[in-house]
């Protein structure tokens, strides 16, 4: 663990990522304290540019809502959608991949056909259809994102389990008389955690992008202020008030970037064998 922390903290990019992400998380957590009013509240003249009016650091949007408030409250949505959809995707993908890899044979065939099937449908298109059908609310958006993002998890876990189950410590566990489930969950899966964690961190990033893309197409939850919504809503005024799409775009960019940096840092730290040299 200490090794891991040491290796991780030696990675400059990962540290920067961590700092950015922590900032975003803190903003999200303390949003109700920083901006106790609803981010939807029309508080000032519309279209105030950033840094022009005291109290409205980032200006106001098309209806005179405080952009900074929207940004801070939107952070919560992005993070929640990112995290929850990733968790759901893991809940689908990890067991499926694990059983497929561990038991092999027909179970493997079945599970992999199922996974391939989902990979055959272009996933952004599927997400759009799912959200449109279920009607956009926070849970349905999260679910749709999870449904399109689990197949790579299943494949990764399967590959890991396939290689791990041939390891000698698994044989040893078998000889000790452990049941299959116990071997799978006690010995095999814990060793597959590193790549899963790395992938999960990147999935959170992808989920945030997906959510914003859906919102951009008008498939966001209208009761919740999100970054994608802010860009989508500001798209129509991009010519006269470009900063309204620019600012939330940068927020997405930074968050996704930080998650990627952290993912890379985790990858380097958890799989030192592949660590990049010369940092």
């Amino acid at each position, binding site marked *: 663990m200490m090794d891991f922390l040491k290796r991780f903290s030696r990675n400059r990019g990962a540290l920067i990522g961590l700092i950015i992400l922590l900032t975003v998380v803190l903003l999200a957590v303390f949003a109700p304290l920083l901006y106790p009013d*609803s981010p*939807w*509240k*029309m508080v000032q003249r*519309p279209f105030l540019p950033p840094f022009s009016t005291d109290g409205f650091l980032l200006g106001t949007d*098309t*209806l*005179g809502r405080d952009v900074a408030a929207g940004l801070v409250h939107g952070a919560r949505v992005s993070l929640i959608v990112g995290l929850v959809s990733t968790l759901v995707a893991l809940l689908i993908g990890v067991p499926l991949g694990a059983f497929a890899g561990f038991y092999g044979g027909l179970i493997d065939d079945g599970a992999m056909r199922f996974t391939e099937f989902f990979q055959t449908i272009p996933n952004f298109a599927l997400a759009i259809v799912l959200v*449109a059908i279920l*009607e*956009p*609310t926070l849970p349905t958006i999260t679910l749709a994102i999870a449904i399109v993002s689990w197949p790579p998890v299943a494949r990764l876990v399967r590959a890991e389990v396939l290689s791990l189950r041939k390891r000698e410590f698994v044989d040893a566990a078998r000889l000790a008389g452990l049941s299959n489930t116990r071997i799978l969950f006690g010995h095999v899966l814990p060793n597959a955690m590193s790549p899963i964690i790395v992938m999960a961190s990147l999935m959170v990033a992808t989920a945030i992008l997906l959510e914003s893309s859906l919102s951009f197409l*008008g*498939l*966001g*939850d*209208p*009761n919740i202020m999100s970054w994608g919504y802010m860009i*989508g*809503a500001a*798209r*129509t*005024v*991009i*010519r*006269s008030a470009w900063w309204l799409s620019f600012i939330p775009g940068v927020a997405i960019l930074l968050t996704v970037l930080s998650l990627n940096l952290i993912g890379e840092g985790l990858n380097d730290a958890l799989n030192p064998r592949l660590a990049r040299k010369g940092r």
Partner: protein
Amino acid sequence: MKNLVTASLLSLGLALPAMAQDAGGRLDIVVQPEPPSLMLGLVQNGPTQLVAGDIYESLLRYDTDLNPQPSLAESWEISDDGMTYTFHLREGVKWHDGEPFTAEDVVFSVDTFLRETHARLRVSLEHVDTITAPDDHTVVFKMKNPFGPFIGVFEAGTMPMVPKHIYEGTDFATNPANNTPIGTGPFKFEEWQKGSYIHLVKHEDYYLDGQPYLDEVYYRVIPDAASRAVAFENGEVDVLPGGSVENWDVKRLTEMDNVCSTGKGWEYFAPHAMAWMNNREGPTSDKLFRKAVMYAMDREFVKDVIWNGFGKVATSPVSSKTNFYTDDTVMYDQDPEKAKELLAEMGYDGTPVRILPLPYGETWQRWAEAMKQNLEEVGINVEMVATDVAGWNQKQAEWDFDIAFTYLYQYGDPALGVARSYLSSNIAKGSPWNNVAGYDNPELDEMFAEAAVGATPEARQEIYTKIQQQLVDDVPVAWLLEIEFPTIYRCEVQDLVTTAIGVNDGARDAWIKQ
């Protein structure tokens, strides 16, 4: 104020057709969304009418004060008892395929074709007894009863003339000719590159001398509102019909050099934005609550900020542009305190109301957000429902809403465009264009019936004034705004909007100043 100047030029153009128009040139007009079909007799949605207005014509056109003007009919008479309408058709009119246009085509179009396919016209045709063609250039409509608004239905989108020689005896909906529409209009269909553009060319045999002036018209399909604005700026398109760019861009675009705009050309439709309030159940079934909603809303803000000052706050179910409007009604200016009082009086228990926004773009979305904010500020709990066009239609048709945004056309006469939303006979699940709110007032039903068949305009005005007073006090529906969709175009384009349906009437008179 270029648009004022243009407007006056326009009227000059109308008054003095002798003024020299430059012939030739091409016009690029945005159409959004891509029309499903150009066969105006089958499909009458906005984009279809915009494009097909160049291809098809009807007997009359209407000027911006809704006065009938000649089109395929040169002249017409209405009998004093209002029971007989006689139209004298222009001679020498040819279909695009060269066949002559005759009174038989009119009878076929109205009596056979449109009666089957045109829902809105069908309602008016119920007052018609017979349609006959005594000779090739005369058509006579005999009525069952006098029907005041009847003279207003001879507009191209309401009563397009379709060629009898092509459609008679066929299955109208699947006739292959629907893909290559044949009309009498100033432009012929040339090519449709799906997803990209529709190309129309000049109808050389058009019956007006020297017209149309333009050689060709391109209707450009550009799905994204921001891209449409860019297209106009880059000079790729010359005309942005009302509603094709978001309101925020309207302001910016009209401030550009050599760009003109006009709010005219919507008088016939007089789009009336409103929010259905479910009169059957939930908090909205209480009149006090509905009044509170009216007082809570800041409609001036919506007009100024969301609609950039275009339009006019609606004070009545009838648009001020439509005949028989009155301002002698209760006025609901924003008054949050009063709204709170009303809520307290009714004992509002905080039950949340679901707002169904109109899924027609960002403007409407913002509007719903603003309303939500207004309502929350007086203590009403609001939940926004997200859905797309299909879901929105469905939820209205199934009465699955508390407050639902919509906007409806008035078609120049309350009997055509207003009564439908309030008649109790119009309460039926399955359609989003009837009395969706579920307002049920037998007394009012009678008044509407009386007004529709009223003999004189004065008599009708009297009844409609009473109707408006009653409705505004009952607030079955929250009237929001008389929408104005400005048409934006390059100033070289002349005589673009000359009638009450504006660009929808086609580019017959339009020309480009060289």
